[in-house]
């Protein structure tokens, strides 16, 4: 998993570099400062899901299956809120502000970078949802905590990337 994270980090690095390189190079509007709003609530949801997934795996390790279920479910909900939030943000940008991926360089880099991250969130959520289904079927045992621990690394990585994306897109980029 660490190897995969190394490879994924390199991919994100390239996209982040492209974003930074193209800040302010768009030839036509809309510009980031006109249309972007800082998604504070979303960010809080996603970052706190890192904590809840940690608590979930910790609970499972000490054989508290019910606590695990609760924390795992909260993680799923928090991640979903983030994804829905991103979707609403995109809807707002596309239909009200008229910014699409082919509008200008900002659109190209913004949708690619945030989209790449959202894609990783989606993959993570599918994994979390699968584990949730197995939990509800009563198939998840404390013996599985190591696997879920490895999986949670991926989720932490997705969160950590968001910190960088957030900084680059919503703070520096604006």
């Amino acid at each position, binding site marked *: 998993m660490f*190897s995969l994270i190394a490879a994924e980090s*390199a*991919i994100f690095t*390239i996209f982040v570099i492209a974003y930074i390189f*193209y800040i302010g190079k*768009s030839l036509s509007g809309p510009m980031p400062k006109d249309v972007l709003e800082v998604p504070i609530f979303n960010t809080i949801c996603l970052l706190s899901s890192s904590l809840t997934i940690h608590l979930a795996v910790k609970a499972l390790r000490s054989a508290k299956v019910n606590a695990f279920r609760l924390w795992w479910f909260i993680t799923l909900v928090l991640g979903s809120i983030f994804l829905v939030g991103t979707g609403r943000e995109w809807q707002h940008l596309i239909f009200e502000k008229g910014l699409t*991926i*082919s509008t200008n360089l900002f659109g*190209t880099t913004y949708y*690619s970078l945030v989209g790449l991250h959202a894609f990783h969130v989606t993959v993570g959520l599918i994994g979390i949802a699968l584990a949730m289904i197995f939990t509800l079927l009563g198939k998840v045992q404390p013996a599985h905590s190591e696997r879920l621990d490895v999986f949670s690394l991926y989720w932490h990585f997705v969160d950590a990337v968001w910190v960088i994306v957030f900084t680059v897109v919503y703070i520096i980029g604006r």
Partner: protein
Amino acid sequence: MASETIAITGPAEISRPLSERLHDWIITVDHKKLGILYIIYALFFLVVGGIEALIIRIQLLVPHNDFVSPQVFNRMMTMHGTTMIFFMVMPVLFGFGTYLIPLMIGARDMAFPRLNAFSFWMTAFGGLLLYFSFIGGNGLYGAGNAPDVGWWAYAPLTSRAFSVGHSTDFWTLALLVSGVGSIGTAVNFVTTILCMRCPGMTLGKMPLLAWLNLVMAGMVFLAISPLTAAQAMLCIDRYLGGHFFDTQAGGSAVLWMHFFWIFGHPEVYVLVIPAFAFLSEIVPVFSRKPIFGYPVMVAATICIGFVSLSVWAHHMFTVGMNSYANSFFTITTMAVGVPTGIKIFNWLGTMWGGKIIFRTPMLFCTGFLFQFLIAGLTGIMLGASPFNWQLSGSYFVVAHFHYVIVGGIVFALFGAFYYWYPKISGRMYNEVLGKWHFWLFFIGFHMTFDFMHIPGILGMPRRIYTYEPGRGWEIWNLIVTVGALVQAAGVLIFVVNLLWSLWKGDPAGNDPWDAWTLEWSTTSPPPEYDFATIPVVHSRRPLWDLKHPEDPDWKYE
């Protein structure tokens, strides 16, 4: 120790219909079968890419030749480069790694056997996708068409305006798909090497092949991923109307160059480090001495791994970077020569005073040492930015990197083929044909690539379709093309030797070379489970300890 086998009787012994045996190969997750699949797949593309090279060379045989049309020439040039790098050298190196690493570290399989199969089929699918472009490249517009943007695919050549049809998309997707396969293989290598070593094999006692492949896999994460990202961007540009590399909307063509070469240069080391690994196994065995400077060898490899990540822009001196960037990349390029030089001295130190046996594998390795040194020296020349301004984009550069890839990597590869052929097939290759292969290939190689430097210095640009008479290039191009044909004859002998020995070769026995690493302790070919009992090792040369209990290695390490 591990040479015992488990007798398999019953259904497995009965010969089964061909379809069933083929089915076994398709669904296999065994590292040995996957390794062989990789190698066969790569050999196929070696022949395909070789034919493309011959078409290029025949076209350049004489001035104003029209053996093929300019369009076909561009396609051949692109396909030759892409095929040889992504679908020949990479798969063959991954194939040897997949086959040998578990055997060398005393494991029964890779850490993730199914991921291993997935990676192979992704790579295979990538190759098919690339070659499907001959049929489907033009989509609904008409006849077939292959990518013709060169293997760097510089923007804006790849934009919709200059590259209509789907040929560039096939190129992009083929590399994206095979890149995913490469990352999967690299994950597998790292996990296998770090987690599956047999008892007693500390990192310091691991065979160098495993060490070097570990470093290579680490580089794959940092080198192939940027390419995957850049290909994704190119797809966004071509399909979703993005502007990453679209200069008319403020995008940057230079950014693509940076992204491509930040993959492209570490890629050279991804390819050459496994070649170093073959040398580090073959040279000691045929010099009858343990490797000279094992820890330094490991340190130098890791050093190459780091430094090579910061040399990419020496491919871009003529783009017009500022003088600080030029100096920085000149210095790092010089610096990467230092650990590489250390390695050359270590192999020479291993040979020095040894009782050298010049069998075919050793001949190829000796050729490697000599040629790789020259390739490194022209590399240092080209790394100096003022010199680069003069010769960048000329045949001198083509000669230089073919010296690295053919004179270095391919020679080491042929050495590896002959060295491990008895283990993989269970039969010895034909030594006479092997020597013929070496000498023909060696002479052909030097005819082609030594003389290719000269038209480069005389000003012949790379990638030109044809040239005018009277510039002093004719004789050199003639020699180069004749050399290419001699090389092709050598490769033909190689293929014949492999196939013929499979039927008629003498049985090889477990350990034909009197070697020291664990793969030679199993039968040839190894049983499906590799080791009946997991071996326990005490030194870097476990088989030496076994053969010489009175004077074991571990007393001195």
